């Protein structure tokens, strides 16, 4: 079984869960003896993966013949149309900018200089990004002509055009893997061009994989897709090497309550701040840490300043993987107050560091971690009271960690890989 996979991010260049999930899925598939050819927009700076054949779109050389053939092709026309409609955002405008700033940041780090901003919200990469999505789809079409694979697997809307193009030219079945929909990213103010690409891809795909039932429901209700076409495969996290963990020293005595993720509307950081204010009224030996960056950051910094809690409420800005590990290891409680979270891989990460978690009922991961404490994201008072409860009752906190870790065992990446492999077989069987 060989799969032609279209991804967009891969470690270390990740803007959110997609890159890590993509990485985990490839690991899980390899362990289930699936061969992978992974197509990415670029290979620069990507960690080498010896068992995966990685093809970088920006390195694919097209002959004149192919080029002329492709220019009259489906993806070229579709892409041109999209560009004419001046579709530009990647995820959302801000998250694209954030991603590229971060990319820049990592490149800078590699070069030895240090990015100086904890913010990541200036710059303008929108148009170039769309061009890249479009060029990527041409590469997709070209990869389709090679025909030496059994199935096509594309992740999220950015690789949809490439996946569909490969399917059209090869006749092989297409699986579309949805990690987040436009509604997750933008709330109700969706970008209609992105929505259209998503709907188009969902209709063209032979099967859709959703990362949670929450996402499956969104696909059914917002995109009017036949429920039978959608399969749920939960994501999982790999236990990271924890060398850095040893020697980590907590500098302050207070208990740490952590929010970690993009600081955007979807993640509910504003509810975290309001809950922090309530908690700090009741207990003093606690600090709140908001780790990450995003378009809502200026607003939230101002809010924290207005509430006059910045002696106990801290912003770290964007953290690299090592700092993220350190942050988890130092924390006493992890809170994910997401307004809309298709999955929420960070909840698993927190559990790897024995950190008890509080989830919003609106996060997909709450389907799996049934023993985690769950609150409605908008119920700030409830959130504050369970934070206090968990900080003060260490026995309860430990119990929750244990129970959640037990649940975690059932959803390892290998498990996800196994499910996907079975799906591949079922589809290619019915296809042939």
């Amino acid at each position: 079984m060989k799969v032609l996979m279209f991804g967009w991010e891969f470690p270390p260049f990740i803007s959110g869960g997609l890159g890590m999930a993509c990485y985990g899925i490839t690991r899980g598939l390899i362990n289930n003896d699936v061969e992978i050819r992974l197509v990415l927009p670029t290979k620069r700076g990507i960690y080498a993966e010896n068992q995966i054949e990685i093809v970088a779109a920006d390195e694919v050389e097209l002959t004149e013949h192919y080029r002329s053939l492709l220019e009259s092709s489906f993806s070229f026309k579709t892409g041109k149309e999209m560009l004419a409609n001046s579709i530009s955002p990647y995820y959302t405008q801000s998250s694209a900018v954030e991603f590229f700033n971060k990319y820049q940041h990592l490149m800078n780090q590699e070069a030895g200089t240090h990015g100086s901003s904890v913010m990541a919200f200036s710059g303008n990469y929108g148009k170039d990004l769309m061009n890249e999505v479009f060029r990527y789809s041409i590469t997709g079409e070209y990869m389709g002509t090679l025909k030496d694979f059994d199935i096509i697997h594309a992740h999220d809307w950015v690789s949809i055009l490439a996946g569909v193009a490969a399917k059209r030219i090869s006749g092989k079945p297409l699986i579309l893997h949805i990690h987040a929909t436009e509604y997750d990213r933008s709330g109700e103010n969706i970008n209609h061009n992105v929505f259209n690409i998503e709907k188009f891809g969902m209709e063209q795909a032979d099967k859709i994989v959703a990362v949670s039932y929450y996402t499956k429901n969104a696909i059914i209700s917002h995109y009017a897709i036949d429920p039978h076409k959608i399969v749920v495969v939960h994501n999982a996290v790999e236990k990271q090497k924890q060398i850095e963990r040893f020697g980590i020293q907590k500098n302050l005595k207070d208990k740490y309550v952590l929010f970690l993720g993009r600081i955007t509307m979807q993640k509910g950081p504003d509810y975290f701040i309001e809950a922090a204010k309530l908690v700090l009224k009741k207990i003093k030996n606690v600090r709140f840490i908001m780790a990450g960056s995003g378009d809502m950051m200026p607003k939230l910094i101002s809010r924290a300043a207005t509430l006059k809690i910045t002696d106990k409420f801290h912003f770290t800005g964007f953290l690299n993987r090592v700092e993220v590990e350190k942050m988890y290891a130092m924390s006493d409680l992890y809170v994910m107050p997401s307004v809309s979270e298709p999955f929420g891989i960070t909840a698993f990460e927190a559990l790897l560091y024995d950190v008890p978690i509080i989830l919003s009922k609106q996060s997909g991961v709450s389907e799996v971690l049934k023993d985690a404490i769950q609150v409605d994201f908008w119920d700030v008072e409830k959130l504050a009271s369970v934070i206090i409860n968990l900080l003060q009752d260490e026995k309860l906190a430990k119990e929750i960690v244990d129970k959640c870790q037990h649940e975690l065992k059932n959803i390892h990446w290998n498990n996800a890989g196994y499910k996907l492999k079975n799906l591949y077989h079922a589809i290619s069987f019915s296809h042939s």
Partner: protein
Amino acid sequence: MISICFYFQVHQPFRLKKNYSFFDIGANHFYEDEDSNRAILNKVSEKCYVPMNRLLLELINKYSGRFKVAFSLTGIAVEQFKKYNPDVLELFKELADTGCVEFINETYYHSLAFLFSKSNFKKQVLKHKRLIKELFNQNAKTFRNTELIYNNELARFIEDMGYTTILAEGADHILGWRSPNYLYQPAGCYKINVLLKNYKLSDDIAFRFSNRGWEEFPLTAEKYASWLHNIAGNGEIINLFMDYETFGEHQWQDTGIFNFFRKLPEEIFKHPDFQFINPDQAQDYYTPVAQIDVPYFVSWADIERDLTAWLGNPLQNSSIEAVYALEKKVMNTGDKDLIAVWHKLLTSDHFYYMCTKWFSDGDVHKYFNPYETPYDAYIVYMNVLNDLNETIIHRQHSKKKKRGIAHGQS
């Protein structure tokens, strides 16, 4: 006689490490960005302080006592000269030795202390007074508050401290129809006089000199002197106040700013009724024409000429309140180093970096701002302040412990 009164402000803040992060709180107690502070001080010294001090010495010698200027050097600028470039300080001492240069007083740490702690304000002024006495052997009788922040209450406070002259911005909204080119007395004061900055003529040099879009470009010494001469009959004292860094740093050497200034005294002296004086001499020549009532704070910053460059947004308000809230705790430690570190966090520049009004003054703000955004500035500042707070708490605990042991033994 009509007097020209030049006063130059010399200030360099102790900038904080831009990458001082949450992880540093409780672990790293050294906040200053020594590398950039040294680099900036040396760069500005080379471009401005050294060549301009030499030029002033040259002019003072040339006119044998008839050319005069005044300076204010902040305490923390002096500390940095001592640390990184003592030669510059020697040049300032040479200037003081000519007898033609007045060194005036301000808050040692270039702070907004008058607004938040009168007792600390007084301490800082006295500390600066001692510094100026020690460096230049002058007993200052003139005072300027940070960024020319001024109101009636400040004038009275400064009068009570024994000063006889105070400087302020000649802002339109305090002068109304009146001219800045006279000596005034602050409302409710009896001894102290106020010199009001002629902002138009000051800014012609400080901001517009090299602006090619300005209709008066290029500004020559002849032209500028003729504007001053035009005031004859309509004024007595023209107060030209500006940042010293105007010369060579804000206006680079290749704009011709040094040549302009070299020629200026000569052009001004072409009119027989013109002379240069120091601020503390104004009362020898003139009596105040009126009282000037300034109930609200004015400053020399931005088009608003108010406090909004340093105060007003939640970032600025919460951080400045937080730092002054530590005053008592810091003082109680009795630890000189800790007290100095805290004082350096009072410097107004830290709050200036957090300014979020990015309108016509945004460019000026950006020029002086080492941070990419005001939010970066705020986060670094609060991280530092939180670490200082932790340090103080730690000291208190260990003090108590020690005391406990001492008691146990007795």
